[in-house]
């Protein structure tokens, strides 16, 4: 019996080699619809979800190992997995990372990663970390800080969310050059968060943003003075006499702003305002 069985294995091996790759259809999903699979699961959808998730992980791993740039079945597998078990958080968290990373690290499909994460949020509205995942994908992969800010903001409102979600929202507002929203968000963090380190960080950001806003407004007044008189103001007194400002403008830390000979305005000690001018930069910084 053993000899016969060994012989059958040998001959089968030969047959498979002869038939080659056409013998198996590698990239095929026989049941592409998650809802259909759920119907056919006879109530054991949780078990099938685990099987599909395992299949998705093995599929990604196999493709990743050979540095593939095509991950055609990855999103369908993840979509079916989450249809079968909408509460399977790991599928949303890890799956979105697999999808969003550029090839060959991942599938390079950040839009599908967003779709998957948004589905996870709909099914698990109490799980605030998915908002972080969404914000991360919008900022890092889609280079869209405004959408990232919205995601972090909404996530920060979920009960139990950690305070740094508000911090992330405020940072994204800075990145999207929306200074007013950024000021509001940092103000909110400073007033509501109890953690001392977070409050200090919020204060530093707030001071820098308030200084940035004030500098922009003061430089506009300097230009108005120049248009009226043909010369740049020599001191704040010139602007006060021209009724363009009510008094000597003070920076958030209490010291007066510096009016330079070229009409630019600056703070006395830039080291006290670490993030001064950062929101205007075009450089893509990692948060």
């Amino acid at each position, binding site marked *: 019996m053993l000899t016969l069985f060994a012989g059958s294995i040998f001959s089968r091996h030969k047959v498979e080699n002869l038939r080659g790759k056409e013998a198996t259809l590698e990239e095929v999903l026989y049941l592409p619809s998650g809802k259909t699979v759920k119907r056919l699961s006879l109530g*054991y959808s*949780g078990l099938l979800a685990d099987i599909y998730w*395992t299949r998705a992980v093995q599929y990604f791993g196999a493709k990743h190992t050979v540095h593939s740039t095509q991950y055609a079945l990855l999103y369908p597998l993840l979509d079916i997995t989450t249809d079968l078990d909408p509460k399977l958080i790991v599928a949303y968290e890890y799956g979105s990372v697999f999808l969003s990373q550029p090839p060959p690290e991942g599938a390079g499909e950040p839009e599908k990663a967003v779709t998957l994460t948004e589905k996870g949020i709909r099914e698990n509205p109490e799980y605030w970390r998915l908002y972080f995942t969404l914000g991360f994908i919008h900022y890092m992969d889609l280079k869209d800080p405004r959408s990232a800010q919205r995601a972090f903001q909404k996530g920060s409102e979920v009960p139990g969310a950690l305070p740094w979600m508000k911090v992330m929202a405020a940072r994204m507002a800075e990145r999207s050059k929306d200074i007013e929203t950024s000021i509001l968000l940092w103000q909110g963090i400073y007033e509501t968060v109890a953690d001392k380190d977070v409050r200090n960080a919020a204060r530093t950001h707030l001071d820098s943003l308030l200084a940035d806003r004030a500098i922009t407004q003061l430089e506009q007044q300097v230009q108005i003075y120049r248009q009226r008189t043909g010369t740049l103001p020599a001191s704040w007194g010139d602007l006060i006499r021209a009724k363009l400002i009510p008094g000597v403008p003070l920076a958030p830390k209490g010291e007066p702003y510096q009016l330079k000979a070229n009409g630019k305005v600056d703070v006395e000690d830039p080291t006290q305002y670490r993030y001064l001018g950062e929101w205007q930069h075009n450089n893509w910084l990692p948060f």
Partner: protein
Amino acid sequence: MISRLSAITLNTFREAVRDRVLYNLVLFVLLLVASAPLFGEISIGLERLILVNVGLSSISLFGVIIAVFVGIGLVSKEIEKKTLYTILSRPVRRWEFIVGKCCGLLVTLVTNTALMTVGFYIALLATAHSLHRSDANILVAIYFIVLQLMMMVAITLLFSTFSSPIFSAIFAFALFVIGTFAEDLKNFAAMASGGARWLVTALAYVVPNFASLNVISQTAHGQAVATSLILFNTLYAVLYSAAVTAGAVLIFERRNLK
């Protein structure tokens, strides 16, 4: 009456536990449960979840298989071996025979489920290294599986009173499958109109509702099951099983055994 019922129940239980198919299926479930942690190795972040899903799904599915394959032979074997005539010639009424068989198989299934549950919790302890309060919710899922098996025993016995073993198995499995779609039938009924609506609605209530007894996913995620659901599911399962068993008794009472 109680002594006759308990005698048939005990005898049915003894016969069932001697069935080799039963041991093989129970062993297979225990092996599946023991191997579940290995599935967690080839996945990410799901060791406990896979174990619970594999364990409970195995207990449920194989419980149904045992209920059907042992249940289809309960009446037919007695007829084939001609032992039924001996039993009925004693002062054992036909309804006592049916109810006793039903209870005997149910006791067998509860015993098997208890064994499989012990194996499952050992595997859970080995995987998670400790048990949490939320792991007690799994017992609710197992209780619902027992209720499901009770209904399957009654259904299988009903078919076995008038049909051959093969057809009894086919009908019982078909009803199990339809029972998982019971809530969809009600949705179809809502979309229908006139006589068809009444017919589909009636059908939706006649077929067993196994969907409401399946809380495996819910408990796998550590979510509790509402007490009201436990109470009403128990009431539903008991009443449905009693109604189907009554039907089996009615058929068996009128059956010509010659």
